């Protein structure tokens, strides 16, 4: 194959413009392809992270009273008792915030009573009752659940001490450098102690774009934010039916309140990842179009080269070149152009990757992606030139003697 390169190269150099144009297309295509795929991979990984929650079987129901005599806590007790009595409901809890939704509460805790702000670790907390663990579908790795008598009554306006807390392994590691946190004590901003009674394997909290999204704690407290909200976990396959049933029943059971919404937990996860998902969709779409247009450019150049050399190909065939030789000639020519573009494209891709990492705080481009991109463009180039090369091979030797 390599003995073909010299004549091909000299032919190419005599008619550079078309080759340069296609080479530039290949270079830009490579730079875009590699970086786009790299960014898409990051987004897909981000979206695919485990939540630790039984997302597919949980729904959220929120209601608000609209009269002054509306007793929200009595309503809450009735609602939860009714929800828990349903055969298809595994667990239900009141909550102050919806996991994965982008809204929630956080506070700082530390391992010493007199901690400076550097020693304080942020913690995203969810007020739940003894059904909280089961309703979230999280796995307890060590320790125990809250007992019913440990759940503190609602109290919106005070900053009271919380005796017990259940935390995630990730939060335990940030606090104690170990997962083994059961029985250990953490301190709030006032230096008041709280005992860790359980450790959750993994759970994502409120803010999916936060680097400490897994720094989550469950707090044994009846949620007291402005409106009632419940997390309900159903048996597999029954969620949609239970949601309908719950909305109908609860709307009718109490006429001084309004059901604000009943939504599957997936709704919040999808909404939080909407821009990441769409970014991936845009990048894939534009990259596919770009590859298509580049392939078209390669195809057009190869076709042009075959057309202007019909007579030359005929002559070569007449003096003994086989069809395979002709195919090889055009493929090598095209490969040279692609390769020149790829070399330039590698430099462009790295430069673009560097700019992206600097300006947009993305991680530096992984070189595997560059290797993959080079291979992909070589293949694309060969595939695009294949048909014109085959057509060239079909040129009859008699063309040598014909005027065009």
């Amino acid at each position: 194959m390599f003995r073909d390169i010299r004549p091909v190269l000299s032919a190419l150099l005599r008619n550079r413009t078309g080759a340069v144009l296609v080479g530039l297309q290949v270079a830009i295509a490579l730079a875009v392809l590699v970086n786009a795929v790299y960014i898409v991979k990051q987004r897909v990984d981000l979206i695919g992270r485990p939540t630790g929650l039984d997302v597919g079987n949980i729904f959220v129901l929120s209601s608000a009273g609209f009269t002054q005599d509306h007793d929200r806590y009595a309503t809450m007790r009735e609602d939860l008792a009714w929800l828990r009595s349903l055969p298809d409901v595994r667990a239900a809890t009141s909550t102050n915030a919806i996991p994965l939704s982008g809204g929630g509460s956080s506070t700082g805790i530390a391992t010493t009573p007199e901690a400076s702000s550097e020693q304080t670790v942020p913690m995203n907390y969810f007020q739940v009752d003894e059904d909280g663990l089961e309703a979230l579908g999280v796995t307890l790795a060590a320790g125990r659940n809250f007992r019913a008598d440990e759940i503190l009554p609602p109290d919106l306006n005070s900053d009271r001490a919380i005796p017990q807390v259940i935390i995630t392994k990730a939060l335990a590691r940030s606090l104690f450098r170990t997962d083994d946190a059961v029985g250990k004590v953490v301190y709030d901003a006032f230096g008041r102690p709280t005992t860790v009674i359980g450790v959750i394997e993994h759970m994502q909290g409120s803010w999916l774009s936060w680097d400490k999204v897994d720094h989550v704690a469950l707090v044994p407290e009846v949620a007291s934010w402005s409106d009632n909200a419940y997390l309900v976990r159903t048996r597999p396959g029954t969620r949609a039916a239970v949601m309908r049933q719950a909305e109908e029943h609860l709307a009718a059971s109490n006429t001084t309140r309004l059901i604000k919404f009943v939504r599957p937990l997936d709704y919040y996860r999808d909404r939080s990842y909407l821009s990441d998902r769409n970014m991936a969709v845009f990048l894939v779409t534009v990259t596919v179009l770009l590859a298509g247009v580049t392939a078209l450019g390669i195809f057009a150049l190869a076709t042009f080269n075959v057309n202007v050399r019909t007579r030359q190909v005929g002559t070569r065939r007449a003096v003994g070149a086989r069809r395979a030789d002709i195919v090889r000639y055009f493929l090598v020519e095209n490969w040279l152009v692609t390769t020149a573009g790829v070399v330039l494209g590698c430099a462009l891709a790295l430069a673009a990757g560097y700019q992206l990492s600097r300006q947009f705080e993305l991680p530096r481009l992984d070189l595997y992606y560059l290797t993959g991109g080079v291979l992909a463009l070589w293949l694309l180039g060969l595939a695009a030139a294949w048909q014109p090369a085959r057509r060239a091979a079909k040129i009859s030797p008699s063309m040598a003697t014909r005027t065009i």
Partner: protein
Amino acid sequence: MLGYYVKLAARSLRRNPGITSLMVLAIALGISVCVMMLTVYHGMSSNPIWWKNDRLYAVTLDSWDVQEPADDEHPDLPPWQLTYNDAAAVAASTIPLHQVRMVKTTAVLVPEDVAAGAQPERVMLRVTSADFFTMFDTPFLYGGGWQAAADAGPEPVIVLSREMNEKFFAGENSVGRILRWNDRAFRVTGVLDDWHPSPKFYDLNNGGFDDPEDAYVPFGWIAALELRSMGNTNCWKPESRNSYADFLNSECVWIQSWVELPDAAARASMQAFLDAYVADQRKAGRFARPDNNRLTPVDQWLADNRVVRDDNRLLVALAFAFLAVCLLNTVGLLLAKFLGNASVTGIRRALGASRRQVFLQHLTEAGLLAAAGALGGLVLAALGLLGLRALYATGSAGFRNIMHVDGWSLVMTVMLAVFAALAAGLYPAWRVGRLAPAVYLKTQ
């Protein structure tokens, strides 16, 4: 002359319909992706109240923890909201022409006569000052806002959005009618016409493209009804909070504050007012951080709060890379085509056409291609933006609203078309003009 060139170009383009449609398609694809991304970018980065950019200012003060800035990633910025007391102090100033302090919250509003068919509705509520409507130039369909005295009372008055007025009062003039909130009768003083400023510059808490609230009530209802914010409430100081009054007096920031200052002199005296207030508060042990008292105009406010995301800048860059590939492609095809047709050009040259004329004839052809490509590109962009809206179906309506072909998109399309014609046509037209006619005449 131009007419003749166009006729020539059209004839030449018709001769190779395959290549022509390939070139048009390439230009159309390139332009459509650019127009889409630029339309979205422009929508996100626009200033929805540009005519008041030199008058409206967001007020921020750095009341945060001395040990760390409010935002680690942007340590130069103060927290973007005020404490309840600081907002009250700013509101007490008589320097601004208009001023508002406000918070977004939620409520259930009940029509007085439920039997008439209207149901209780959960609404997003802006608790704000009387000046809100004049300051932000909100259009009114019926009635108007409330008097400044209603803020302090607070009086039970309410302004509805057009959409809410449809729901509660079937779109009729509802001024003077009653909606109940927590068993209190709120009298409608006005109904807004369609008003969807995007970005929602005056409150970026819930994202830059959050929808405007459904209703507005006087600011005094915050304390009267012990309301909490539906946006962010950020607290840094460990301080005992055992009542709602403690919360109001805390270092938590949750109130948005805007002032309208008609000229530079007013701005300077407002700045002096803020600095003096902070200096005074220092004596009481507050404001331990260095002075960072800001009056930020709307466009700077949108930039400081990073309404346009990095992703959008990246997509614009990507779109132009794509356009570059499409145009390179077109240059290649056009060149091959022009050179393939060199014999005709040779005859023209031999018959007396100047290089300049040959150049212009071919450039006209490129221009025609670009025009067709731009037309196709605009259609593709309109379809693409429809697709984008579908992708954002679950997002905020304000964000979807920027995804349509507008005047700006048309201007961009025309500019891109001119650019495409020149970028794709200049070199091939120049090359073909340089050909020596004799060579081509000989082979015939």
